[in-house]
């Protein structure tokens, strides 16, 4: 049984690793977790295919760090980026001129296209009605209203060219600054739950939510010209891809980008279709938007989710049950083991996923490893507690009866602890199903993918498309373990003793 599980794990690991590396000669395009980046990623992907290159799009992988590390690490070959981000975040200290950036990037074996034609810079916005009431037109005007509540994206709060620079440059007195998901921030400001949010100047929602973009009167925010970053080794193994990217240089202006963002975000047109429509009208290139049916997409997500849950849970069980036994048998190791798995469990799941990126890159494998680590605690703890909870009289009876230690463990202690161990596995499985939705953030797919897209597009139907199956799967897992318990646990353990 155990040997079978390990064999299966080895096979899956090989399959996954090769899937992450991709086929020879293919190009992997990455994009960040917001609509504009996804559209730009999709444009590159479709043009790549048009040039006859096998191109895959790993869409909405996460934030800047994730994409940059994945690009340097070779898990992706190119992704859309902004010059301001490169100068401020990726290569701090580099002058924000195109030539200086290109030279600095080359040190990392990364190439950069010319700007695509639009500047997507940071800006602050508030509802037109509120701004009019307080007569706020510029960011400097905010100084007079220290009670205003700021709701900024987490990335904006953290990065040096974001909130810290803004506060210093404008001497802003506000203290009520909350971190929000960028896509939720619009709804928060529209609903009056926050007053000022950060935006990107090409965001589709500016018009939709009747927002006023405050004038950056001290010219704080640098230029954020959209470009593609690509691995310089593409010039060897896929030069046609670079030629394809060049076709997008200087061909998208701000109004076109806002229109594309609006189509995807507000009208619910899939990014694949938005991209192919643009390529047809602007570059006269007909590409295949490969729309997938709803059922097809659901089935794909289900398969991805089951892969994440199944493999990580099997690995958790295979490792955690022996660890729990070890912790029980060898008390000194037990303290260390229980403390270690507890510490892992206290790491926020999102952080654990991000820790995996430098080690294992992006995709299914790091997500499975993170889920596996997460699943250890409930199983180790319950295995240990189940064994430790066996009444001393019972254990002594087994000893005096003459059973040697291994036979005692196999014939008496593990079977008696079985209900407890199964309960631990059930807990791990249910948590795993829920946590696996976060795997989408590092490109592992699963039910988290529609949820992520749904939040990004403010599309509740898409959120439900991921959330409902995830909840149903959790309930099925729960029910399945209930059934398994009836089959595996001897009747004698389910009965209450008579007097």
């Amino acid at each position, binding site marked *: 049984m155990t040997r079978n599980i390990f064999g299966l794990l080895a096979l899956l690991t090989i399959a996954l690793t090769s899937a992450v590396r991709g086929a020879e000669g293919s190009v992997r395009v990455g994009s960040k977790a917001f609509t504009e980046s996804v559209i730009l990623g999709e444009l590159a992907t479709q043009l790549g295919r048009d040039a006859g290159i096998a191109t895959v799009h790993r869409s909405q992988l996460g934030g800047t760090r994730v994409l940059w590390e994945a690009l340097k690490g070779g898990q992706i070959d190119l992704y859309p980026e902004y010059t301001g981000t490169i100068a401020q975040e990726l290569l701090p200290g580099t002058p924000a001129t195109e030539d200086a950036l290109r030279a600095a990037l080359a040190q990392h074996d990364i190439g950069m296209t010319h700007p695509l034609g639009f500047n997507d810079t940071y800006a602050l916005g508030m509802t037109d009605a509120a701004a009019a009431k307080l007569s706020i037109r510029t960011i400097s005007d905010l100084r007079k209203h220290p009670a205003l509540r700021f709701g900024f994206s987490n990335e904006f709060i953290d990065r040096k060219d974001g909130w810290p620079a803004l506060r210093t440059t404008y001497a802003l007195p506000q203290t009520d600054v909350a971190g929000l998901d960028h896509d939720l921030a619009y709804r928060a400001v529209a609903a009056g739950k926050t007053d000022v949010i950060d935006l990107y100047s090409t965001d589709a929602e500016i018009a939709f939510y009747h927002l006023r973009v405050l004038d950056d009167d001290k010219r704080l925010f640098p230029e954020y010209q959209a470009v593609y970053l690509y691995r310089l080794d593409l010039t060897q193994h896929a030069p046609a891809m670079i030629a394809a990217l060049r076709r997008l240089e200087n061909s998208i202006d701000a109004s076109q980008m806002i229109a594309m963002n609006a189509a995807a975000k507000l009208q619910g047109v899939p990014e694949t279709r938005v991209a192919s429509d643009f390529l047809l009208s602007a570059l006269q290139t007909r590409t295949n938007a490969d729309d997938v049916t709803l059922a097809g997409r659901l089935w794909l997500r289900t398969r991805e989710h089951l892969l994440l849950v199944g493999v990580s849970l099997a690995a958790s069980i295979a490792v955690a049950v022996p660890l729990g036994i070890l912790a029980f048998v060898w008390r000194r190791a037990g303290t260390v083991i229980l403390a270690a798995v507890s510490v892992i469990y206290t790491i926020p799941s999102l952080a654990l996923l991000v820790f995996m990126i430098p080690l294992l890159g992006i995709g299914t494998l790091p997500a499975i490893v993170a889920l596996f680590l997460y699943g250890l605690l409930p199983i180790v703890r319950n295995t240990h507690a189940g064994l430790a909870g066996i009444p001393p009289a*019972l254990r*002594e*009876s087994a*000893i005096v009866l003459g*059973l040697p230690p291994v036979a005692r463990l196999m014939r008496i202690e593990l079977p008696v602890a079985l209900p407890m161990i199964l309960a631990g596995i059930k807990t791990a499985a249910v948590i795993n199903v829920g946590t696996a939705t976060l795997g989408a953030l590092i490109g592992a797919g699963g039910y988290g993918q529609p949820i992520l897209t749904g939040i990004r597009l403010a599309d509740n139907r898409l959120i439900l498309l991921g959330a409902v199956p995830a909840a149903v799967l959790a309930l099925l897992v729960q029910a399945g373990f209930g059934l398994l318990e009836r089959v595996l646990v001897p009747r004698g353990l389910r009965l209450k003793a008579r007097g």
Partner: protein
Amino acid sequence: MIRLQSVSKAYDEKAAVADITLDIPAGRTTALIGPSGCGKSTLFGLMTGLLTPDAGSVTFDGELITPATLPAVRRRIGYVIQDGGLFPHLTALANVTLMARHIGWPRDKISRRVDELVAITRLTPSLLSRYPAELSGGQRQRVSLMRALMLDAVVLLLDEPLGALDPMVRAELQDELADIFQRLNKTVVLVTHDINEAAFFARDIVLLRDGQIVQRGSIDDLLQRPAEPFVMQFVRAQRDRLHVTERA
């Protein structure tokens, strides 16, 4: 049969057994009795090898009990504790035959032995397919006794075997057990806190207090020639049921 030679055992520097020498004669029943904390359970643990003495030695049938000899010794010991100590995930039959199966007895030898034991303990055979939780307290003790006798142990160690039973069942089982011990001619060590039960089963009673032997002898010795006032006190405290014992 079992000999404890100057054994001492302490927990957290508090002596549970202090320099006790005790001979358990073969083919007879010896009762260990005393108030709680007197050391009788510790003595019991030393005889089963669950505890190792801090000082002194324990020999079983002339052989020193060491980690090396313990496995062989334990197959010659039958062990019954309060409420049976049956494994809840195994049926009564699986409990009884567990050790025989583990050491690879052939199936027909096992079933022959089970039939003998059913006859000895007068257990209703259909109960063997039940789980411990489906048996009454008295039935559990019969099954536990069957398990103890399965490999034909020469020594039976019984720790408060009837402690959890109501008086009616207890009296019935007392009669049957005494009968079984007599017929099988086993060496029996019985731990109890009940002087009546001790007197009922054993002509040889060892009264303990604070980890030491206060007096060893028959119930008559204890009643008529108490070694010290404590013996009188201990016996008197439970005297109200003594007529049951005297009849036997």
